[in-house]
C-alpha cells in the first residue's frame, strides 16, 4: 500500500531505525519523521568499547550514514525532545513548543540507565556510559592500568568490562541483584556465574559480603580519585565508579497521552497500545504474552529489531503477533566464561 | 562728465606704463568684438590687482564658457578656463587648496544662472572668499545671440523669433537671499565706477558678487545698448544703508524698472576658510601651508 500518511517514530535506536526501513519499503509515498534526543545519527552503541581502544571518530560508529536518510526520505530530527503526546488529536509537542501532527506514531524511545534512589546524591561522582560523549569522557578519565569500580554490573557494564580487562585495566564489580540484568540468573546458578566472572578477570565483591555501600567520595590528593566506604567500615579505592543497574523505559513524555502505561507502555501482541494509532517497540514496552497471561519486557538487540519490524508491518496493514524467537539466556562457555546474546551487534 | 581737456597720446601712454597695470595684461589680444563692454572689465581688473599689490603669481582667474569666460587668457596670472557653468566650484577647489591665493571667478549670465545656477547659492552661503564678477549682457553671445536667463521679455533672438516669453531672473535679489556677504552692481560704460567697485569687491573678505551690466554690441541692438543703459543706469540712493539687507532687497527689486549701480549690501562673517581652519583646530590637527607638494609630510 502507499499512502500520504505521516508516520512519526520517537527514538532512533535499533527498533526505530528498523521500523523506519520497513515503513519506507511498505509505504513508499508516506512521510516519515524520526525524532530523537540524540545529536548523533543511528550509531552502534554496542561498539562503544572501541572508544577505549582509541577510536574517537564517531563517524566510524554510525550504522546508517547520512545519505541513507536522505535517500529514503526519512526526516531525522536530532537533539529534539518530545514532551507531550496527544493521542486524541494525534499531535505531539516538542520541547521547543513545536507541534507535529502524526497519522501513526511508533514510540521506540528505549530505556535509560537506572540509578537507585540511595545513590542519586553521588551522581556527580559517577560516570555513565550510554552515549558516545560519555564513553569518550570515561576513556579520557581512565589512567593507564586504571581501576574501575563497577556497581551492579548489567550486561552493558559486563561487556565494557571485558574490553577494559583486555586492555589491562582492573575492574572491581560490586555485585547485587542487578548483576547480569536483563538476564535472570537463579539463586542456584548465581555462584557459578559469579565464579565465571572471576575467571574472566573481574574482582567481584558480593553485596552481602561487604554490606551495603555507605558513601562514595572524592579521594584525597595523591590517592585514587574515588573512595568507597561500606557500612562495615571497610574501604575500596578506585579511579572511576560506574553504575550499571540496568535500564528503565523512557516514557515521561507519554504521561497524560491517553495510553496505558505500567512500567512500560502496555501493548497487545501486535504491538499496538490502547490507542489505535500508537504503537511501541523496544525495551520501553511490555507485550501481552498469553502463555504467562502477563505483560512482559523483551530485551536484546535481536528482539528489539524484530519488534521494530513487526510494529512497522502492523502499522502498514499487517496483523501479525509478537513471538519471541530469540534466545535471551545468559550462557556459560566451555572455558568457564560468560557469554550474552546481547553482545556483538550485527 | 565735466569740461573736455586735451590729452596727449604720449602722456597717456606714459601714465599707463608707469601705473604698472599693464603687467597684469597678458600678451594675448582679446577676441571680443570692438565696442564690447568686456574690454573695460579687463582694464578694471588689471588696475585693481595692480593697485592692491597682488603679485601676478598669487592671482587665479577662473571662468566657465562664453565670451566673458575668455577673460583669464587676457590677464597675466594663473587661470582656469573650465566648463560651462563650473567656474564657481572650480574656484572652490582652488581657494580651499591654497587660501593665500586671490581667486576671481568670472562668467556670463548664461554660464552663471542657467547651467551654472545650481552652484551659485552654495558658493554664496558658504561665504567662499572669492570675487565673482558676473558679466551680464542679457544674451548668449559666443553661440551667436540666443536668449539668456536675464534677457528681457519681448526680446527677439534666433531661439525666440516671436519674442522671449520668459521673465528674467533678478540676480541681485537672488544673491542677497543666498547669503552673499558683499553684493554690488556696476556698468561697463562707466570705467571709473567699475574700477572702484571691482577693487572693493576684491578687498572684501568673503564672497563678493559684482553684477556688471554690459552691452553686446553685435547681437543686441534693441534692448541692452549703450544708449539705453546710459539713460537707465543710475546710482543707488545716497541714503541707502548697505548693512540693511531688506533695504538692499527692496532696491534690487526696483532694478526691474531701471538698474541702479553701487554697493547694495555688505557684511562681515566667517568665511569657509575660517570654518575649515576651525575644524582642524578642533580636531587637534596642524594647519598646512601649500605650495604644491614641496614640503608635504607623510606620517
Amino acid at each position, binding site marked *: 500500500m502507499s499512502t500520504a500518511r505521516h508516520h512519526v517514530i520517537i527514538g532512533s535506536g535499533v527498533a526505530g531505525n528498523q521500523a523506519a526501513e520497513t515503513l519506507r519499503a511498505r509505504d513508499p509515498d508516506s512521510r516519515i519523521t524520526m525524532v530523537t534526543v540524540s545529536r548523533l545519527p543511528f550509531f552502534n552503541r554496542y561498539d562503544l568499547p572501541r572508544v577505549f581502544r582509541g577510536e574517537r571518530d564517531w563517524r566510524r560508529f554510525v550504522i546508517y550514514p547520512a545519505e541513507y536518510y536522505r535517500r529514503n526520505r526519512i526526516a531525522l530530527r536530532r537533539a529534539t525532545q518530545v514532551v507531550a503526546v496527544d493521542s486524541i488529536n494525534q499531535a505531539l509537542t516538542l520541547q521547543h513548543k513545536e507541534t507535529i501532527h502524526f497519522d501513526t506514531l511508533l514510540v521506540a524511545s528505549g530505556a535509560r540507565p537506572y540509578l537507585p534512589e540511595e545513590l542519586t546524591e553521588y551522581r556527580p561522582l559517577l560516570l555513565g556510559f550510554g552515549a558516545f560523549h560519555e564513553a569518550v569522557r570515561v576513556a579520557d578519565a581512565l589512567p593507564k592500568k586504571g581501576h574501575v569500580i563497577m556497581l551492579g554490573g548489567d550486561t552493558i557494564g559486563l561487556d565494557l568490562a571485558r574490553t577494559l580487562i583486555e586492555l589491562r585495566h582492573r575492574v572491581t564489580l560490586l555485585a547485587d541483584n542487578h548483576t547480569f540484568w536483563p538476564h535472570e540468573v537463579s539463586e542456584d546458578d548465581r555462584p557459578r556465574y559469579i565464579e565465571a566472572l572471576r575467571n574472566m578477570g573481574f574482582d567481584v565483591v558480593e553485596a552481602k559480603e561487604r554490606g551495603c555501600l555507605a558513601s562514595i567520595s572524592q579521594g584525597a590528593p595523591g590517592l585514587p580519585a574515588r573512595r568507597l566506604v561500606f557500612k562495615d567500615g571497610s574501604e575500596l579505592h578506585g579511579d572511576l565508579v560506574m553504575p550499571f543497574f540496568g535500564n528503565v523505559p523512557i516514557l515521561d513524555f507519554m504521561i497524560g497521552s491517553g495510553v496505558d502505561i505500567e512500567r512500560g507502555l502496555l501493548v497487545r501482541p501486535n504491538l499496538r497500545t490502547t490507542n489505535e494509532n500508537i504503537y511501541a517497540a523496544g525495551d520501553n514496552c511490555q507485550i501481552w504474552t498469553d502463555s504467562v497471561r502477563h505483560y512482559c519486557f523483551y530485551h536484546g538487540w535481536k528482539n528489539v529489531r524484530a519488534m521494530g519490524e513487526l510494529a512497522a508491518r502492523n502499522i502498514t496493514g499487517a496483523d501479525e503477533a509478537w513471538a519471541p524467537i530469540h534466545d535471551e539466556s545468559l550462557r556459560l562457555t566451555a572455558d568457564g566464561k560468560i557469554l550474552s546474546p546481547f553482545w556483538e551487534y550485527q | 562728465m565735466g569740461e573736455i581737456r586735451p590729452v596727449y597720446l604720449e602722456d597717456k601712454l606714459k601714465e599707463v606704463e608707469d601705473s604698472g597695470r599693464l603687467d597684469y595684461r597678458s600678451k594675448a589680444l582679446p577676441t571680443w568684438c570692438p565696442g564690447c563692454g568686456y574690454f573695460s572689465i579687463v582694464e578694471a581688473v588689471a588696475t585693481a590687482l595692480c593697485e592692491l599689490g597682488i603679485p601676478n603669481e598669487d592671482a587665479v582667474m577662473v571662468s566657465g564658457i562664453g565670451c566673458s569666460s575668455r577673460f583669464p587668457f587676457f590677464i597675466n596670472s594663473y*587661470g582656469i578656463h573650465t566648463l560651462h557653468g563650473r567656474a564657481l566650484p572650480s574656484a572652490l577647489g582652488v581657494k580651499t587648496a591654497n587660501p593665500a591665493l586671490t581667486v576671481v571667478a568670472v562668467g556670463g549670465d548664461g554660464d552663471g544662472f542657467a547651467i551654472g545656477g545650481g552652484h551659485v547659492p552654495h558658493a554664496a552661503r558658504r561665504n567662499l572668499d572669492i570675487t565673482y564678477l558676473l558679466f551680464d549682457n542679457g544674451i548668449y553671445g559666443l553661440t551667436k545671440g540666443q536668449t539668456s536667463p536675464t534677457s528681457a521679455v519681448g526680446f527677439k533672438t534666433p531661439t525666440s523669433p516671436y519674442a522671449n516669453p520668459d521673465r528674467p531672473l533678478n540676480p541681485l535679489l537672488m544673491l542677497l537671499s543666498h547669503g552673499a556677504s558683499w553684493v554690488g552692481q556696476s556698468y561697463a560704460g562707466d570705467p571709473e565706477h567699475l574700477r572702484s567697485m571691482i577693487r572693493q569687491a576684491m578687498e572684501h573678505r568673503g564672497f563678493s558678487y559684482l553684477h556688471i551690466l554690459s552691452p553686446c554690441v553685435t547681437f543686441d541692438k534693441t534692448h541692452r545698448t549703450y544708449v539705453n543703459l546710459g539713460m537707465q543706469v543710475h546710482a543707488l540712493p545716497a541714503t541707502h544703508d548697505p548693512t540693511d539687507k531688506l533695504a538692499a532687497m527692496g532696491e534690487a527689486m526696483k532694478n526691474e524698472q531701471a538698474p541702479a549701480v553701487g554697493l547694495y549690501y555688505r557684511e562681515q562673517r566667517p568665511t569657509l576658510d575660517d570654518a575649515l581652519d576651525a575644524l582642524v583646530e578642533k580636531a587637534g590637527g596642524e594647519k598646512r601651508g601649500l605650495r604644491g607638494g614641496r614640503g608635504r609630510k607623510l606620517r
Partner: protein
Amino acid sequence: MSTDVQIAIVGSAGDGTIAAGDILRRAMAEIGYRVISFDLYPAEIRGFGKCIARLRVTDEQAYSLKQQSDILVSLDDSHAIPHVGEAREWGAVIYETHSVNPLPEGAHLSGHIDPGQVPYNVPIRELAEKSTGSARSRNIVIVGYIIGLMRLPVEPVLRALVGKFKGKGDIAQKNEAALRAGYEEGLRWFRLDDIEFGPPPAQEKGAHVEMISGNAAIVRGALDAGIDNFFGYPITPATSIMERLASEMPRHGARLVQTEDEIAAISATLGAGYAGARAATATSGPGLSLMAEMLGFGVIAEVPSVVFVSQRGGPSTGMPTKHEQSDLNMAVFGGHGDAPRIVIAPTSVEGCYRCAGRAFEMAEAYQTPVIVLLDLYLSNRYETVPFPDRPPFDADTNRYADTRGGAAGFQRYALTVDGVSPRSIPGQAGGMHVATGLEHNELGRPNDQPDMHLAQSRKRHEKLKAALSHPGFEPAKRFGDTGQVEVGLVAWGSSFGECLEAMYLAQEEGIRCAAVKVVMVSPFPVDFVATFLADCKEVLVPEVNYQGQFAGILQMQVPRAVTRMTRIPCAPLRVEEILDEIRRLAGRIVEPQAA
C-alpha cells in the same frame, strides 16, 4: 591551509547579527588569523529583514568566500531555515533550543538539519537573560559560544569586544558577561563536528595586521599619501569614504568639503589639483556619469586628480545596494573626444590601500585624472591587511618647472619626449598660464590647428604609457602554473578573488591552470597580457556585468578569442560556477551541459 573555517550567522536586522559577525572577525584577527568577511544587509534601514554575516578564517589570506560554510548560526529560524543547506557535511549548525511561543510544524530549525550536519542546540536566550538580564545580548552570547566550542582563546575576543564598544560603559560590561556565559557553555559541549582551527600564522615583520573594509582601506591609503583636499557628494556605496575622511582629515590638517552635487565635487577636485593639492572625490556609477565632462577637462588641461568609484548595479539608478562591475566602460571611455585617463582597479582590500596611495602619485606624475575603480563587494568587505609600519608612498611626484627669470610666457604644455611637461603651481613666480578645456598650444593658448591638435593628442596618450612601469605598482600579475596551461583566466576587480580560488581548485583536480589579475586597465598592459594569452590553450574571462565589458577591452587590446563568463547575480561570482567553466574548457566534463 591548516585553517579554513567559514562562519555564517543568519538573523534579522534587530538581532544584532551584523554586530556578532563584526566582533567575531575582529576577534579572529586579534587571535592572529587572516580573515575575509562580507555581510548581506536587508534592503530596509530598520525592521526585520534578513541579514547574513559571513566570515572566513584562514592562516593564509583568502580573497573570496566559500560556497559552503563550516559553521552556520541561526539567530532567527525563519530567516535561517532557507540557508541551512549552506552548512557543509560534518559542519556545525548552532541554533536556539527553546522557543518563546508555540510553533507550527517546520518553524524550528531543528526540523531542517540534514542528517550529515552536526546540531548544536543551545539555550542562547536563557544564557543571555541569566548573564545580562535581557535577551538583547543573544548575539554576544553566541560569539562566546563559538569561541568556547572551538576551544579558541577568549582574551583576544574580549579585546575585540572592548574595542568595538569603546566608551559605552555599562554596555561593555554587559557584553563581557554575555560573552563569558556563552564561552563557558561552549567549553562544556562535546564536539561532533570535524572543524579544526590550526595555529595562527606568525607575525609579519615591519607591518601590523589590521582588519579593515575596502572603503576604510581607500581612506587609509589616501591619508597615508598625504591627501590635502576632498570634495564629495554622498552616494551608495561610496559614502563611507567621505564620512571617514570627514572625521580624519581635519586631524591631519587637511580639508574636506561636501559639495552640492557630483559636478561641483569633480570641479573642485580639479581646481584643487590645479592649485597643487593632492585632491580627490569619491562616487559611484551615476556620479561618474555626471563627472564625465569634467574628467575630459582634466585630461585635456592635464590636471592631477583622483576619483574613487565604487560600482553598484546599473544602469542609471540601478540597484544601489547590489554588487556589479558594469562601470568599466564608463571609467575607461566615459566622456566625449579622445580622452584617455588612468584607470586602476584593485582586486582586494589590501589592493584598495595600495591603489589609493599610488593613485595620488600617478595623478601628479602623469598630470591626469586617475580613476580608482572598486565595487560594492570590495567597499563593504573586510580583510586582514598587513599595513607597512611606514607608508610606502612618495610625498611628491610632480615634475616642476624652473620658472625663475622666465621671459616670454611659460610653456605649461611643452612637447617633451615622454609627454609630461614640467608644471608650475599657482604662487610660483613666472609660471603663469591658463589651464583650458580648449585645444591649445604649448603656452596653453587656444589653438585649433591640425598639427597642434595631433601633437597635443599624441602627448596626452603617450605620456600615460609610463604609468605601466610606475614604481611600486604592478599593472598585472600572474598566478598559478607557469608556462603552457590548459585554461587561463583573466579577471579584474573583486572578481579576481573568486577566480583565484577556482584556479587553485582546478589545479588540485589536475588541470594546468593560471590566472592573471589586470589592475591597470587603462593604459592596458598589452605586452604582459599578450604574453600570457600565448601560453593559454583556452581563455576564460569571468566578470559581473552583462556586456562583458572587460572582455571587450581585452579583445580590443589583444585580439584573441576568449570565452566570456558574464554573470549578473547581484552578488559576487560563485567559485563553483567558475570552476565548472574551467572544467568544461579543459574538456573534463563529458556529459552534455544542461541548457
